[in-house]
């Protein structure tokens, strides 16, 4: 027994020595990446850790943090009605803006790819422009304004309908926040899709044509999508980031707090407690929950994307086999 243990430890030590030698061999690699790692640790990893620790305390910046255990989480989940509303709204926004924005990015990138070259360049600018135009989405608050400046209401009056309080009536607010968010959702992921579609080898399509693919939808399903999988993963990550960070648009359109908290999101709630009420412990608890939700969502999406890719591969193989059978006959 003692012998085996000694052997085990000797092996461990040897492994460590080998690892250390290896690391020494790659010394210059570590030097190259050190500046980034340092910044990354201090301004990305450390903040996440601090946020986690602070979420168990009462901290208002003036007094030192005081440990209060799970109180923040208990209050957040059981006593804070506004948080429950915010969580519901975030769930709705993320559930619609994430997948729909992702799908739209891909569909438009795919349609644009059908255009001739110069038209394509123009179309990419047209579709990508809202995402990079910064605060230009404020123009929607003019379009939807409920006073005499509102475009939509002028149209409503012109066609003989009752003008509405688009941005302060909870019946319409969610809808317009989603519309404006989708308007801005063709961002980095969209660019990756456009670039990825251009990079697919043309000869694959020609081969598929010979193999009996009949229309553009079959092309999309059997060739384009399997080829695009790496881009689809990248696009999914940016889509998740976009879907959970909804807060600027509802704030700009409907104000903070909005009527009946109809478009209050977890991030707006976080900003409210973090930069207005200075309850940093409570705000950190909100951040931690948001953080967990993002990680969970990421894992879920990756699992789904993995399965989609595999299924398609099988189908392509099946298709090829069928074609071969056809040839033999």
């Amino acid at each position: 027994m003692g012998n085996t243990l000694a052997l085990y430890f000797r092996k461990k030590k040897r492994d460590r020595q080998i690892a250390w030698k290896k690391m020494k061999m790659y010394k210059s690699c570590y030097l190259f990446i050190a500046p980034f790692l340092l910044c990354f640790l201090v301004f990305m990893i450390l903040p996440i850790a601090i946020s986690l620790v602070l979420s168990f305390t009462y901290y208002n910046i003036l007094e030192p943090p005081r440990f209060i255990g799970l109180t923040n989480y208990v209050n957040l989940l059981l006593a804070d009605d506004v948080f429950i509303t915010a969580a519901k709204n975030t769930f709705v926004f993320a559930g619609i803006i994430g997948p729909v924005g992702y799908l739209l990015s891909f569909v438009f990138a795919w349609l644009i790819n059908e255009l001739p070259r110069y038209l394509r360049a123009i179309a990419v600018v047209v579709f990508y422009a809202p995402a990079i135009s910064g605060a230009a989405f404020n123009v929607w608050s003019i379009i939807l304004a409920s006073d005499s400046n509102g475009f939509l209401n002028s149209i409503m009056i012109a066609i003989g309908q009752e003008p509405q309080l688009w941005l302060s009536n909870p019946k319409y607010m969610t809808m317009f926040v989603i519309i404006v968010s989708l308007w801005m959702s063709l961002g980095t992921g969209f660019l990756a899709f456009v670039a990825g579609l251009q990079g697919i080898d043309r000869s694959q399509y020609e081969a598929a044509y010979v193999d009996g693919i009949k229309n553009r939808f079959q092309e999309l399903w059997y060739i384009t999508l399997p080829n695009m999988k790496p881009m689809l993963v990248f696009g999914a990550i940016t889509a998740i980031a976009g879907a959970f960070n909804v807060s600027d648009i509802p704030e700009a359109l409907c104000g903070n707090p909005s009527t009946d908290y109809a478009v209050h999101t977890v991030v707006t709630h976080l900003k409210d407690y973090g930069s207005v009420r200075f309850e940093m412990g409570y705000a950190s608890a909100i951040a931690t929950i948001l953080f967990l939700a993002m990680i969970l969502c990421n894992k879920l999406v990756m699992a789904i994307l993995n399965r989609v890719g595999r299924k398609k591969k099988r189908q392509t193989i099946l298709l090829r086999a069928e074609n071969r059978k056809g040839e033999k006959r």
Partner: protein
Amino acid sequence: MKKIIRHRQPNRSFGGDIGVYIILIIAGAFMILPLLLVVSNAFKPMDELMKFPQEFIVHHPTLKNFADLFGFLGQSWVPFSRYLFNTLFITVAATVGQLIIGSMGGYVLAKYDFPGSKKIFSLIVTALMFNGYVISIPVYLIVVKLNWVDTYLAPIIPFFASTLGIFLMKQFMEGIPDSLLEAAKIDGAKEWGIFTKIVMPNVKPAWLTCIIMSVQALWGNPQSTYLYSEELKTLPYALSQVAAGGIARRGAAAAVQLVMMIVPIGVFIFSQSNILETMANSGIKD
């Protein structure tokens, strides 16, 4: 007619093509019309901005809004050029720093399989999701502890931690053939020499893309969380102050929107092909 059909790609029907154009024109109009309204508003004289019902097209275009905007900026006790300098300085310093740090890290992640490289990369990919507010409070506390509040360091250094730059660099650098690097090594080049003389000149499209992505993130950011002295404040902050002046400044506010919007869109138009070349490598394989 026959000729057209012969020149068409396989697997494309006429009806389908017409459908593609119709969908793209309708959706494109939805995307671009609000932005055109920003442009048209910026040139509207006051009476047209206040008109009821509002009209989309400007009838008597004027540059008065821009003149007003610079007039208001000229009145502030910190000169306009100072705001512009602050924004330019923060944008340039943060962009250059991130570019250098990101390409150094991206290079070794792409070309060497050193212990821990896989873990570091998967952390970077996960962190791509966390831009924004999730960590804003602790980052602020760290900046306070470092005594960086109200200095240029506060908006610049934390920006170096953003991961999109290093991610795109790494993906793009994987396309550089290993034989090129080995040849340089045989010729006696040191690691740093290979990086500066061979790798960097070969990834120009990726530089441009990283520059544009960070300019987009920085240009419109008022940075009001960290900068409190008036002489350190940025152009977007000054512009938003002008725009917040109520009805009398509605014209100037419309001009502000156009100024803030036109820079990132203009930069994108000029560098589109480079950006697309970089994004073609952005895919994540397992």
